[in-house]
Structures are given as C-alpha cells and as structure tokens.
C-alpha cells in the first residue's frame, strides 16, 4: 500500500497557498485585493505565496488595468487544478485511512 502522505503536494503545505487555490478553484479568476481580504494577510505575505504557486505552474497571472489602477488577477492552470484535486484526494484518504 502506498503512503497517502506521499501524495500530499508539498506546494500546498501552507494554509495561505491552500486558501489561494481554494478560492481560484471556484472562481474563474480572483484579483489581488479580493484574495487579500479573503485570507486576511499582508501584501508581502500574499505576494510571496502567489509567486511560489506561479513558479510551480499551479496558477497563472494576468496583469490588467481598471482605469489607471493596475488590476492583477490570478487563475488556476490545468496543472494546478490536477495537483489540487490530488491533494484533496490525499486528504480524504488520510482521514479514511486513520479511522
């Protein structure tokens, strides 16, 4: 039997990243400020986690403008979606397995 912990994606280790992925999974895209309000964290903290997810190919970034203000939105990639679903499955197995 394989160890379910192996399937737990290292990238989703942090609560913030898990939160970002959760929000992006149920929305086409979410912008920086909405993520910040949702997760109640600082700009710098959020930015660094977003960067990590982007570098791993889990999310994609789109820079745009609303009037003169920059509006950066984020969305999950195919890879990110697959990885997140895998992570959920692993969590489920872990709960079932230890019962």
């Amino acid at each position, binding site marked *: 039997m394989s160890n379910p912990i192996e399937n737990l994606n290292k990238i989703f280790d942090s*609560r913030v990243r898990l939160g970002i992925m*959760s929000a992006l999974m149920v*929305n086409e895209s979410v912008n920086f400020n*909405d993520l910040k309000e949702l997760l109640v964290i600082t700009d710098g903290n959020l930015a660094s986690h977003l960067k990590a997810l982007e570098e791993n190919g889990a999310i994609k970034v789109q820079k745009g403008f609303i009037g003169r203000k920059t509006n950066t939105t984020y969305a999950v990639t195919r890879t990110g979606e697959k990885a997140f679903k895998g992570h*959920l499955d692993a969590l489920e197995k872990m*709960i079932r397995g230890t019962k």
Partner: protein
Amino acid sequence: MGEEQQSLRELQHIKRIMEESSRFISLSGLSGIAAGVSALLGAWISFDYVTGRKDYIINKELPVPHVSPNEYSIIFNTWIFWIAAGTFFAALISAFIFTWIKSKRQGTPIWGNTAKRLLINVSIPLVAGGIFLLRLIHFKTFGLVAPGCLIFYGLALVNASKYTLAEVRYLGYLQILLGIINLQFVGLGIYFWAAGFGVLHIVYGAYMWWKYEKS
C-alpha cells in the same frame, strides 16, 4: 489521530474559503424579516383597494387587447402602483440596512464580486418577470399578477441560491409552489402574495437569524 485532525481542519479551511470566495454570505436574516414586514404592510394598505374591485380582478375571459399608448401611464397613475413601488423600496432599503450592518460586523465588504454576481443573477428572472407582468396588466389579466410575482420571484431565488446562502433555494421553491397554487385561486392573489412575500420572508428570516446570527 493527529494527522486525521490535521486533514480535517485543512478540508474545513478549503471549504470555508471556497464558500466565502464564491458566495455573498453577509445576507442577514433580519433583512428577510424586514422585507416580510414591508410586504405585509403593503398588502394591508392595498387590501381595500384590491378586494374592492374583485370583479375587476377575476376576469374570466381574456379581453381582446386594445393597444393604446396611454395605457401604461394609466397604470402609473393608480394608487396600487404607488403602494407597490413604496412597498418594494421599503423592503429593499430595510433589507439593505440589516445586511449592511452584518457585513460591517463580519468585516467583509458589502460591494464585492460576490455581491455583484448575486445581484446580476437575481435580476435576470426578476426583470424578465417584470416585463411579462407589465404585459399581463396591459391585457388586464390582473388575476395572474400575484401568481406571476410569486413564480418569477421564486425562480430568481433559486437562481440566486448558487451565489449566496444555500438556504435561499428552499425559500424559492416555496414561493414557486405558492404561485402555482395561486393559479388555481385567481382572485385571492392578495392573500397568496401576502403569504409569500410577507409570511415566508419573516419565517425564513427568523430561521436564518436563529441559525447564523443569534449569538
């Protein structure tokens, strides 16, 4: 054991973020109660007006339409129109106030993407229904106005339930059901309308307040 707890907590976190990011959850139960009270007041004020013209409401045969450009202005000059408009705005404003207070307390912004999505999805069946009802009034089929209000409002709620608290769906089902029953009792529309927009709103609002906001 520790791992199980950890996984469970993680799943709960995921679920909460998914809900919060896609649904407008500041909708207050007190808003439902306020809207219901407004509706009952509106029904009470217009009761004599509506029931006094009962023969006018139960029109068994659909009259052949005589389209005249003045007909809509005639509607807008009736008491019942202004009572209806007053009721609508009283309900809207009082409902808004309680939801605004709740969102303040929760620290979530009232005007965000979730609110926008909710508003758009509530409006689609409502606007379509409104146009349809205006046409019914135009053809003097007044008896179908109350059931029409209930059915279209119910559809709007069912549609909206994907974008706000999921319980709204059951309120929607009940409104649709009342509207359909009302179709068999044309002429008693004011009672069905008061039951749907008044009583159901108050019962729903009290239940939601009890469930989520009581503390």
